[in-house]
């Protein structure tokens, strides 16, 4: 007689919130432990390293507020990009062109800064830069969406390719010394990006010694607006229906093409805005302006299951990982920022595993089963 297998997988009902929370926390803990082993192998004390990493090395720092300021610089772009990508993913439009849209947004904002920076006052200038970033990123994204709507091209491939187009365009501007190239520093003999005029620098609101980056406030407002949009507004409802079943949307009289174009414009425009915020905060364009947010954003959006509040939490955590690792590694020459990427990968894998345990449970062949079958 053949026996029941020793282990088998059984689907479970939606696990409750405590179970889910426990599963994900375990996953993160297990990832941290894996990282600890890797640190030990390299002769680094994991407790000390993690201590510095998770506190962003704030205790004992001479400029603790500076750490927070730098953290915000990295956090805001990731947050906005992740939110924007989630918007597209909700509609099952696989926009992986975040990198490209970010670059184009940053380029457009920089062009405005270099061209008009001397004439306009700071608030107006920042507004103009934001608008340029919005439109630049948005149009770049809508190009891929338009082709999809019109001829059914594959948006994944197209947005991916457009990333490289944008990247090489940026490199072209970075390396071409010419009188028309307004991005470069005219004083330098070698090609080098110029600093923006003062009016094109992001507004910083001083609170004591701490200077609050205004883009954080903007990102917070955006979060709230997107949350309401997706949950309560007609536009959000349409995104949900189109994502779930385009044929149903068409049947219900929705103009699916128009909804796709509108949503992707919004998604890409927000990514462009993030690009504008970033260059204006940095005060200068750079060849590695994206800091990989277009890719990390995809990971964040999926880890958070496209949930707006989840994205806030996840992007905050991922930024702690990246920035914390960067600061902590300054005291350990053996470790560099790549360790953050490694840890991020391990977390991603283990959270996916946790996801499996949230949806299924494993049953061990028991005595009961055998007695029943007698």
């Amino acid at each position, binding site marked *: *007689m053949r026996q029941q297998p020793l282990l088998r997988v059984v689907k479970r009902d939606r696990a409750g919130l405590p179970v889910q929370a426990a599963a994900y926390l375990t996953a993160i803990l297990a990832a941290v432990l894996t990282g600890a082993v890797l640190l030990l192998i390299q002769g680094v004390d994991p407790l000390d390293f993690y201590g510095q990493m998770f506190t962003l090395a704030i205790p004992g720092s001479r400029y603790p507020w500076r750490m927070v300021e730098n953290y915000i610089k990295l956090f805001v772009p990731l947050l906005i990009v992740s939110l924007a990508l989630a918007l597209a993913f909700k509609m099952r439009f696989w926009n992986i062109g975040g990198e490209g849209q970010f670059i184009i947004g940053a380029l457009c904002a920089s062009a405005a800064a270099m061209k008009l920076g001397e004439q306009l006052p700071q608030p107006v200038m920042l507004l103009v830069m934001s608008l340029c970033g919005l439109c630049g990123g948005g149009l770049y994204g809508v190009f891929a969406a338009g082709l999809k709507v019109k001829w059914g091209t594959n948006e994944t491939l197209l947005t991916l390719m457009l990333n490289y187009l944008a990247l090489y365009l940026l490199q072209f501007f970075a390396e071409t010394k010419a009188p028309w190239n307004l991005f470069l520093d005219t004083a330098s003999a070698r090609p080098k990006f110029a600093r923006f005029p003062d009016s094109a620098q992001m507004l910083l609101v001083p609170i004591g010694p701490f200077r609050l980056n205004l883009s954080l406030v903007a990102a917070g407002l955006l979060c709230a607006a997107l949350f309401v949009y997706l949950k309560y507004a*007609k536009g959000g409802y349409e995104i949900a*229906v189109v994502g*779930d079943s385009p044929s149903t949307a*068409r049947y219900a*009289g929705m103009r699916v093409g128009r909804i796709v174009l509108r949503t992707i414009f919004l998604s890409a425009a927000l990514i462009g805005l993030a690009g504008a915020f970033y260059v204006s905060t940095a005060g200068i364009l750079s060849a590695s302006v994206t800091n990989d947010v277009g890719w990390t954003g995809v990971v964040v959006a999926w880890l958070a299951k496209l949930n707006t509040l989840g994205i806030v939490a996840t992007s905050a955590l991922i930024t702690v990982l990246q920035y914390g690792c960067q600061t902590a590694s300054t005291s350990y020459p053996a470790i560099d920022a790549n360790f953050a990427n490694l840890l991020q990968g391990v977390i991603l894998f283990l959270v996916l595993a946790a996801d499996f345990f949230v949806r299924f449970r494993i049953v061990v062949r028991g005595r009961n089963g055998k007695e*029943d079958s007698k």
Partner: protein
Amino acid sequence: MEERYAIEMRGICKNFGRVAANKNVSLNVKPGEILALLGENGSGKTTLMNMLSGIYKPDSGTILVNGQETVIHSPEDAKRLGIGMVHQHFKLVDVFSAADNIWLGDEHSGPLLKKNRCDVIRQMAQKFGFDIDPQKKVYNMAVSEKQTLEIIKVLYYGAKIIILDEPTAVLTVQEIDKLFAVLRRMKAEGHAIIIITHKLNEVLEISDRVAIMRRGESIGTVDTAQATEQLLTERMVGRKVTLNIDCPTVEKTRPLLEIRDLTIRNDEGATAIDHVSFYIRGGEILGVAGIAGCGQKELCEAIAGLRPIETGMMIHKGDNIVGLSPKAILEKGISMSFIPEDRLGMGLAPSLSITDNMLLKNYGETKGPFVDRKSGRAAAEQVIQELEIVTPSTETPVRRLSGGNVQKVLLGREIKSGPNVLITAYPVRGLDIHSSYAIYDILNRQKKDGVGILFVGEDLDVMMGLCDKILVLCHGKVMGVVHAHKTTKEELGLMMTGALDLSSKYADKPAGIARDSRIEEVEP
């Protein structure tokens, strides 16, 4: 040998999460016997059969095959034990030939496509009395041919126990007769057959015994010789029911929707609907009969504005609706609900809640930027109550409901929008008797309110009972319009296959054109 069963299932339990799909179910079949498995939707028939064919594993209970206790781990195990299942949705590779589809799944055939495979399979098919061309590609096959191929496949693998899941749902009357002849021959050869079907007349015709299930439990077995439709229904539903489809007579109005000389292409560009004319009056149910794929879907889509038309006119209450957007057609009061094979493909957003699905067609009517979920919830509550939809709450995603309830949500929303023309395709597809009757009642209530209904159906008995007139399509052409109460199933069957053409029976009145047509009013 008397008590030797081909299959015996004892105390089978299977849970999906908190839902018990099968509770302590027992069942047995003897060799040379046809057992009908009967039960409402969601009563666990398919789950039970999937455990026999190795797709699911029981949580507890025993399965005995030929008296031997066994655990079936996988479909391969089932195959080795001689159990074969013909699924409701065929599992065939479309671009392969019949022979290759069989060859592909045979472990003894080895890694090579042997040259003589077609002959081997032809010989084997002839042995069982099937007529099939092994070289024909599956995508060129009619539905009945595909089903025959599935049965041959199962027999070729050496199955002695054959399970058929709703095999007659897609067949015409003549094809069903052919299938039953095959089943009887297999029975005579000593095969054990389990057949799942909702159609009681078929159960009485073909089976030796009937096993009845209700809400995951086995209610018992009845010898078919002692069974009647009434008795079976009562045991299945658990209470007394009346089994008459009403067809109330309602005063008819002038044509509400007229279709004249309509031609439509399908997705591949071939002609799907070929110069079709018909009309629907208020207070009338017009049935559309035809073999699956004879243009019903394209016709429904064209009326709803989802598919461009080649030529022809569609006149609603004296207004031309050709070229209008789906939204504009909705606003005229023409509602279309099409239940595709997967039940969810068109008309509902499966991951969204019942509330959100209620709002699908009218969310744009409220002022302001926000969706009015309050009215949606009220609508959902009303529909749930009126149509007796079983659901944990109004916020449950539609895909978590059982088939019958999904269809009620769809139909409920369509009726709530107060249409004057209701186009409904396969509203009872895959539904059990109880839910089906609930839906016929809903349609009859609409008819009494003066709504014109186009009913695209599959079951001829139902159409003859429910409809006033029946339009028969064959390869996109009208074969005639007959009075539902004056026709016979045989006549309809012949028309569906194109053997009988009544479209020009009366020289003075071609089929599908109303004497009091309103089309002249719109012509320039």
